[in-house]
């Protein structure tokens, strides 16, 4: 049994006795009512405050407040009055700003309000910007985590040169997706990834990790356990690995096609093809080609 399975068992054992109480539904509804009441009380307080400010102003000027506008059209004809508003362009905006812009335009949101961590941006909107809609219509926003800029390793240009290596070959259609990490795979390690069209929001295609100094032992330790492969004149390993390092013969959802090798005694590389992308390419052949094209950067 691998460490992931043992861990899953350990977790299961800790919580298997936990059951949601049968009163949960009632409690949730009562919390909701309390929320609505709080909201109404706050609203009433605002109205009171507004009146408290407006009355002295009206009294203080010595003028009467203006008469309210006529409440119905005076044309005498039956006319349907539609209060229309324009959908703003919110793609590329931070989620919170986009939601505020939509509300300010007099529109509402359909579906759950994006919970909006600070790093999320709106990637699609329905309808398109400029569309005329009746006030209070519902619109749809879809947000995604935004690649931080700059990331751990900063702007890598095309992403092919980093951590002391250069990547000469990548499968067609992959481009740097701007994600990079430092020391995520041990000290010192550097990683970056390449995705179809450079869009990493749907998952990476290829990830490359460079191990330096002490961290090289990570790759050395796999040399004897993962099936070996020739990479030009170097020897390396190639297989489908779980996150815990177990070798599985056939690719699965929880495995990553991996090739690893030493460039020097103090510099090693691993290349992964994601479980998603592995279905689109000949993973072992592509991994070999990528590995053969990697060299120490000048």
């Amino acid at each position, binding site marked *: 049994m691998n*460490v*992931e399975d*043992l*861990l*899953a*068992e*350990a*977790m*299961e*054992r*800790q*919580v298997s006795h*936990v*059951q*949601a*109480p049968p009163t*949960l*539904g009632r*409690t*949730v*509804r009562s*919390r*909701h009512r309390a*929320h609505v009441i709080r909201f109404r009380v706050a609203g009433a307080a605002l109205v009171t405050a507004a009146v408290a400010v407006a009355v002295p102003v009206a009294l203080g000027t010595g003028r009467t407040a203006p008469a309210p506008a006529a409440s119905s059209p005076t044309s005498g004809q039956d006319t349907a009055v539609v209060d229309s508003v324009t959908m703003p362009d919110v793609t590329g905006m931070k989620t919170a700003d986009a939601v505020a812009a939509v509300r300010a335009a007099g529109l509402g949101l*359909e*579906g*759950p*309000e994006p*919970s909006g*961590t600070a*790093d*999320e941006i709106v990637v699609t909107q329905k309808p398109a910007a400029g569309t005329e809609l009746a006030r209070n219509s*519902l619109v749809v926003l879809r947000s995604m*985590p935004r*690649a931080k800029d700059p990331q751990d390793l900063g702007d890598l240009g095309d992403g092919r040169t980093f951590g002391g290596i250069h990547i000469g070959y990548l499968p067609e259609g992959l481009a740097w*997706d701007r*994600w990079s*990490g430092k020391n*995520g*795979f*041990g000290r010192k390690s550097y*990683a*970056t*990834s390449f995705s179809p069209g450079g869009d*990493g929001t*749907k*998952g*990476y295609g290829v*990830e490359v*990790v460079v191990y330096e100094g002490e961290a090289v032992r*990570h790759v050395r330790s796999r040399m004897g356990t993962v099936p070996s492969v020739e990479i030009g004149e170097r020897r390396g390993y190639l297989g489908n690995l779980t*996150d*815990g*390092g177990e070798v599985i013969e056939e690719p699965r*959802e*929880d495995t*990553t096609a991996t090739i690893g090798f030493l460039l020097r005694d103090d510099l090693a590389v691993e290349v992964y093809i*994601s*479980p*998603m992308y592995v279905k689109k390419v000949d993973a072992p052949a592509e991994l070999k080609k990528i590995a053969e094209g990697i060299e120490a950067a000048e």
Partner: protein
Amino acid sequence: MTDEDEAAFDEFLAARSTSLMRTAILVCGATSHDAEDLVQHALEKVYRHWPRIRSDNPEAYARRIVVNAAISKARRRRLIQEITFARPPETAAPSPDLDLRDALFEELRRLPPRMRAVLVLRYWEDQSEAATAALLGCSPGTVKSQAARGLARIRERMNVTEGAMP
């Protein structure tokens, strides 16, 4: 909210609330009582938007709220623990009389909250890298490195512990 909405919400609760509570406990290391409070808060948000979201994967919405709230809670607990005990996180190894799974769980609890959340979602909930990334609002690359790092740390410390045992 229509009667049909109310009935669908009850069905959703019956099917998913236990799983949400378990996730909350695993991610933030809270007691059942604390986890229940956290899940109630998340479900109240779900209930508020239920008529609009019931046909659009309400579980993912609820799970995302629970996981992120649990991570925040775990961070606060960790801070309080560190202030209270001033205990370096890399010291106390699990007691040798715990069996392997208890010891593993102890090691899981000692990981940083976000790394722990990655392991819970990936290996207990069996979520894919992409789904875990979407739930946590990070890139799949980060999920991959956090999972590998978390497992390596656990394995490393378990090896040390086993080596130290008679």
